[in-house]
């Protein structure tokens, strides 16, 4: 009962934040509200007992993303441009997409369903074998770093690639050009 009430409150606040974001013109406020949105999502994940995911959401979604959005704001304008076209077509697109997504969730298993695809696969094996095979209490870390070590290496490579992409696009670091006299020395030696 208490959990239903908490979930309901959090979802109402989530929707209220989303509506506030769409109605705001000042982008500084929008960035801060997006941070609030992430923090509320993190709270929802805590009520689902997914503490590791909640931690990541709070640190990345509410923390770093907000800083990066604010840094982006310094490179662009601070006020949203007023819409010039009629909002009818975007509204129809959003409604249809939203209806399709809600229709898709009807097929999803209930929360905590023991027959859900996520439960009947290898998850039970991991939970059963990790105490003797690895012996680390936090099974999330075990799955992430050991059983699924290849995936995590890919994730790390993705983070690295994202960083390199940003550096190449906007850091302004130029390739080091050799000055003419250096070039001469390079050829003679």
């Amino acid at each position, binding site marked *: 009962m208490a959990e239903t009430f908490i979930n309901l409150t959090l979802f109402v606040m989530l929707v209220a934040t989303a509506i506030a974001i769409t109605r705001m013109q000042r982008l500084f406020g929008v960035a801060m509200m997006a941070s609030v949105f992430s923090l509320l999502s993190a709270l929802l994940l805590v009520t689902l007992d997914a503490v590791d995911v909640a931690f990541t959401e709070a640190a990345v979604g509410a923390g*770093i993303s907000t800083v990066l959005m604010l840094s982006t704001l310094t490179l662009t304008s601070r006020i949203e441009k007023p819409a010039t076209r009629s909002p009818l077509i975007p509204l129809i697109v959003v409604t249809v997409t939203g209806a399709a997504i809600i229709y898709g969730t009807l097929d999803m298993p209930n929360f905590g369903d023991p027959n859900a695809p996520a439960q009947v696969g290898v998850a039970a094996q991991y939970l059963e074998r990790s105490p003797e095979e690895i012996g680390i209490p936090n099974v999330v870390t075990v799955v992430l770093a050991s059983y699924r070590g290849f995936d995590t290496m890919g994730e790390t490579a993705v983070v690295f690639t994202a960083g390199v992409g940003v*550096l190449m696009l906007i850091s302004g670091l130029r390739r080091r050009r050799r000055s003419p006299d250096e070039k001469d020395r390079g050829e003679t030696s």
Partner: protein
Amino acid sequence: MRHHLILRVVTKLLVSSIILFALYVQFHGDFSPGGGFQAGVIMAVAFILYGIVFGLEKVQAVFPAWLVHKLMALGVLIYAGTGVFSLFLGYDFLDYGAFTPDHPSHGQHWGIFAVEFGVGVTVTGVMVAIYYAFAMRRPAISDEEW
């Protein structure tokens, strides 16, 4: 540059505890929520906070851009290097049992420690590098403009 006195004092107090918390999340991830990804972000936040309050020159004196760029690659190298190391010892790629052959679960602890450290280093590097990339584009805007 004498404005925001409270912010500057509080930041000085906070930065060290943020770094300590990042190290805790990094190396206590086996027992509590957390791990390399979260720890890397928290570690980066410490430097970003310092940079926002005290300016880019101050933070780059502590944590220069060239070092950040090296760290980005170093983390991936630590992770992949762990795998290659176990490969050279005659085990599968990323099979941490290689580190202590007579006690495989102990080797798992070392392996997870190593790869999580690699993840943390890369995430710290990338987050700080992205912040530097944005912040170096344009001088900080004045308070009134917000």
